[in-house]
């Protein structure tokens, strides 16, 4: 697992604080090249923060993040931007530019970063839209799209420059079953067809496990468990079991930390 | 979004119209064109009292604008020294007299040139001394003189 050739992203002993609250302490992750890796964790466990660290949008207090053997947080602005051109990211909301239509949204990175002629851009964009099945929707505005369609357009935009890696932030959240199925299928297929590396950050255990090659479970600022999807689903540890099967109470308590019940109710001063 | 050509057209219209209004302000309202006397020569004139004369006040010869006041200072004899620029197309005979007049009853003040007869003209750097200038009319002085005259007539 430590061979640099096979791991596209290496996160080593990262510590990160948000205000006074520690989000990660000594977190280490490896994301293998060409595979679909899922990072699972409950809401607020800092999963999106991991993606922001990989993308260099925020810097850790300690530790290093290597992407394609480059230390993300030691790069110059230009180096970081060059690296980001080779990464795609799918935001939870899609984050389409609301004043551009579908076609222009997908064409946006191409127009910003290349000086390709318009005819070539057209080919490129329609090709990617075809991959996500929305070639016919090219003229629509983002406000006219359903949540699932918006996410597919955003996906087309994320892969339009043929990146080496795509990061998905909660790709399954808030979708109807059909759209969800489409996205699940797309992530796996695009990964294999375009030979990319995919990182999925999510709390939807079953969708993630159905397509992921390798799964990390993150909580309390560290990796709780890791393994391939099969192992994780059948794991015996209480923490893993609670999360994977969605039990309401377990090592992660149902109650938010509070004062003693009787103290709170009986001795309340009004 | 709006068609690119249409948008560019309106932006162009907007900028042109707005610039025109700025040009209008500069030249029609701010008088930028005429405040520039053009190629000129400088003279000075000494006055006993300049009244309300201000820099940039017009200098007129027979009612025609020939120059402007550029600055007003006090000379060694505590007299007002008015710096004037005159367009080089206009010539002022050396025996001309300069007086400060008021445009209308309450209007702004200007310098009127009463053309002399000598065939020799003022050149750059010349000074018109107080003998050849007439100070501004000060209303209080006028009224005072009027009463003095009346009193003189009454005493005769």
């Amino acid at each position, binding site marked *: 697992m430590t061979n640099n050739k096979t791991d596209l992203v290496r996160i080593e002993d990262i510590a990160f604080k948000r205000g006074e609250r520690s989000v990660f302490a000594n977190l280490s992750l490896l994301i293998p090249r060409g595979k679909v890796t899922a990072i699972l964790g409950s809401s607020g466990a800092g999963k999106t923060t991991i993606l922001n660290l990989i993308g260099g949008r925020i810097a850790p207090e300690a530790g290093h993040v290597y992407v394609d053997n480059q230390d993300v947080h030691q790069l110059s602005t230009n180096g970081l931007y060059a690296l980001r051109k080779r990464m*795609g990211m799918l935001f939870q909301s899609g984050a389409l530019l*609301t004043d551009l239509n579908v076609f222009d949204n997908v064409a946006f990175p191409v127009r910003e970063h290349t000086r390709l002629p318009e005819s070539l851009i057209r080919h490129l964009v329609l090709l990617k839209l075809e991959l996500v099945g929305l070639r016919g929707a090219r003229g629509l505005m983002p406000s006219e799209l359903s949540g699932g369609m918006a996410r597919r357009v955003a996906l087309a935009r994320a892969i339009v420059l043929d990146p080496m890696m795509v990061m998905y932030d909660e790709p399954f959240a808030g979708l109807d079953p059909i759209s969800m199925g489409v996205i699940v299928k797309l992530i796996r297929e695009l990964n294999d067809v375009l030979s990319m590396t995919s990182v999925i950050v999510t709390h939807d255990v079953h969708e993630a496990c159905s397509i992921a090659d390798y799964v990390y479970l993150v909580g309390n600022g560290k990796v709780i468990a890791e393994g391939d999807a099969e192992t994780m689903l059948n794991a015996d540890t209480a923490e893993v079991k609670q999360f994977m099967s969605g039990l309401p109470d377990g090592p992660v308590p149902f109650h938010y930390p509070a004062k003693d019940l009787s103290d709170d109710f009986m001795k309340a001063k009004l | 979004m709006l068609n690119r050509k249409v948008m560019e057209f309106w932006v162009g219209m907007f900028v042109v119209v707005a*610039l025109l209004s700025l040009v209008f302000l500069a030249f029609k309202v701010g008088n930028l064109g005429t405040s520039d006397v053009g190629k000129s020569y400088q003279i000075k004139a000494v006055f006993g009292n300049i009244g309300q004369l201000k820099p940039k006040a017009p200098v007129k010869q027979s009612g025609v604008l020939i120059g402007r006041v550029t600055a007003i200072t006090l000379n060694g004899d505590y007299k007002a020294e008015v710096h004037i620029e005159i367009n080089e197309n206009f010539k002022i005979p050396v025996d001309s007299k300069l007086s400060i007049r008021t445009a209308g009853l309450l209007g*702004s003040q200007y310098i009127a040139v009463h053309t002399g007869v000598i065939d020799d003209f003022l050149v750059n750097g010349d000074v018109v001394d107080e003998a050849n200038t007439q100070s501004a009319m000060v209303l209080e002085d006028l009224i005072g003189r009027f009463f003095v005259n009346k009193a003189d007539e009454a005493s005769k």
Partner: protein
Amino acid sequence: MTRYISLVGRKAIGTVERSGRAGLFLYDVLAGCMPLMRRPGLVVQQLYMIGVLSFIIIVVSGLFVGMVLGFQGYNILRDYGTESALGLMAAKTLTRELGPVVAALLFTGRACSALTAEIGLMKATEQLASMEMMAVNPFMRVLAPRFLAGFIAMPLLAGLFTAVGIFGAHLIGVELLGVDVGVFWNQMQSGTDFYDDILNGFIKSVVFGVVVTWIALFEGYEAVPTSAGVSQATTRTVVYASLAILGLDFIMTALMFGEI
């Protein structure tokens, strides 16, 4: 008691910190303006949104303000028998004060509030973050074009307002109330100075344009990414920008015309 003192302290620290962030923000925006030289299309697009769409309100308001000046000026000046100075009075008040100030206030309401809401929503919907991840600098792509457009549009709008206002005063003074047209314009031209009046008014409007657009963009960029946050940011933009206009106008008037 100590609670109130520490409250004052907290507010003060917050204000200083915020001004520091606003300064850094302006630096980033200005840095983003440089690469825009190669992409004037982005600025043109924002000039349309900011300038052209403010055109109507500026022209209509300018006309009405000018006409009111015509009526009031005539009534006041007639008492002293100097209605011939109506053109001069209208031109001086419009070029020095009303043009830059009222145009900037209208600009704040019409364009700046929209700027804040737009930037705030772009932030709330992760559009700015997604641009960053696409290796597109949002300061260059989103904020700098809007800043430049505000900087260019504001003096133009102020000039337009002033010119239309003078026309409005002419309409009432000359056409309706019968001030002689020659006297109206002659008095105006001999009394109005290019440097004292027009240029100083122009400088004011440039300063207003920079400050007001800066406030609008900064508030949008700093907005809490919720609907309540964006609406608060929009309100703050209008309040802060209006106060900044009036405060700066006082300071600039004192510097330009105060003869201190």
